[in-house]
């Protein structure tokens, strides 16, 4: 494993935890998607996100320890954002979160395309291939929601719930300024968040949907409501036998 600066590790950990949480939350829809074909597509997206998380953890944790690191840390040690952690118990919430998160995720990978961290730029290029599908998938649904009044109202209600939390994805790590100076990331979270607000605002207009965009940052050291039970459920299998090698 390569030696990385604290700033680099912090950026990678925050992104990896986001990907882990969103992938796991999406995966809760396995078998419950609105129809079979969408169930398959959405769960593939979940699998892609978990794959990204694994690849990112692999840069900062020895391979043999990734499972334990990903699943058995104390909740206070996670650095995921509220948007990724939230439970989206209805399909409209899950869809809107998927769109908001992947719009941000694409910007975050692009921000790593020139990263000085060995291997990270290649990983970003590969992940962006997945993201092209994820964003087109989200857009495919979002562009259709204004056509049906009940669908539009549901999605707008979901936007009202999620937009205030969505900016949390741009909560910077404590050492972000160093990460920018070291070339780990090209631009700051703040710069990216402005691009994201522009994109989301333009898209909502294009989709014919109403929603108030803006960014309210969160704190990556604080877990959101419901995290503990979610975390326990993620660790259910590995906790059966913590000494076992999977």
């Amino acid at each position, binding site marked *: 494993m390569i030696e990385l600066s604290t700033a680099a590790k912090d950026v990678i950990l925050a992104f990896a935890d986001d990907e882990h949480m969103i992938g796991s939350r999406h995966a809760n829809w396995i078998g419950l998607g609105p*129809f*079979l*074909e969408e169930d398959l*597509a959405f769960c*593939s997206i979940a699998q892609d996100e978990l794959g990204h998380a694994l690849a990112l953890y692999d840069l900062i944790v020895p391979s043999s320890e990734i499972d334990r690191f990903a699943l058995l840390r104390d909740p206070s040690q996670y650095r995921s954002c509220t948007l990724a952690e939230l439970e989206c118990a209805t399909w409209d919430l899950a869809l809107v979160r998927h769109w908001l998160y992947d719009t941000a995720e694409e910007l975050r990978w692009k921000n790593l395309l020139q990263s000085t961290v060995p291997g990270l730029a290649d990983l970003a290029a590969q992940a962006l291939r997945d993201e092209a599908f994820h964003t*087109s998938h989200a857009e495919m649904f979002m562009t259709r929601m204004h056509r049906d009044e009940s669908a539009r109202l549901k999605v707008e209600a979901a936007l009202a719930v999620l937009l205030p939390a969505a900016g949390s994805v741009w909560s910077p790590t404590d050492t972000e300024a160093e990460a920018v100076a070291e070339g780990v990331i090209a631009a700051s979270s703040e710069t990216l968040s402005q691009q994201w607000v522009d994109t989301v605002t333009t898209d909502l207009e294009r989709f014919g949907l109403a929603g108030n965009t803006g960014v309210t940052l969160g704190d990556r050291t604080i877990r959101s409501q419901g995290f503990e039970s979610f975390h326990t459920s993620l660790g259910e299998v590995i906790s059966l036998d913590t000494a076992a090698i999977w």
Partner: protein
Amino acid sequence: MNTYEVFLKKPGKDEFRHAGSMQAADADMATVLARDSYCRRGEGEHLWLIDRDHIVAVDPDVLATTVDLAHRTNDGSAVAARRKRLREEAS
């Protein structure tokens, strides 16, 4: 929802083969969702989606009229019998 018949072509000289069917609200949605229904792990290089409503299906009764047409079946037995008879006559 519309039903689409899915045809997948592997790399190389193989022809398009029927892979199954899927549902989607329209063709654009079908093109997004087909990938994960039928080609998650590089199973194909080209994919056709055909709206089932656009398929022209032939009445099975029409096809039933082609069963039991012995004169359309040449298994070579008549020619073999004739050759055998001519051989025996010549010897």
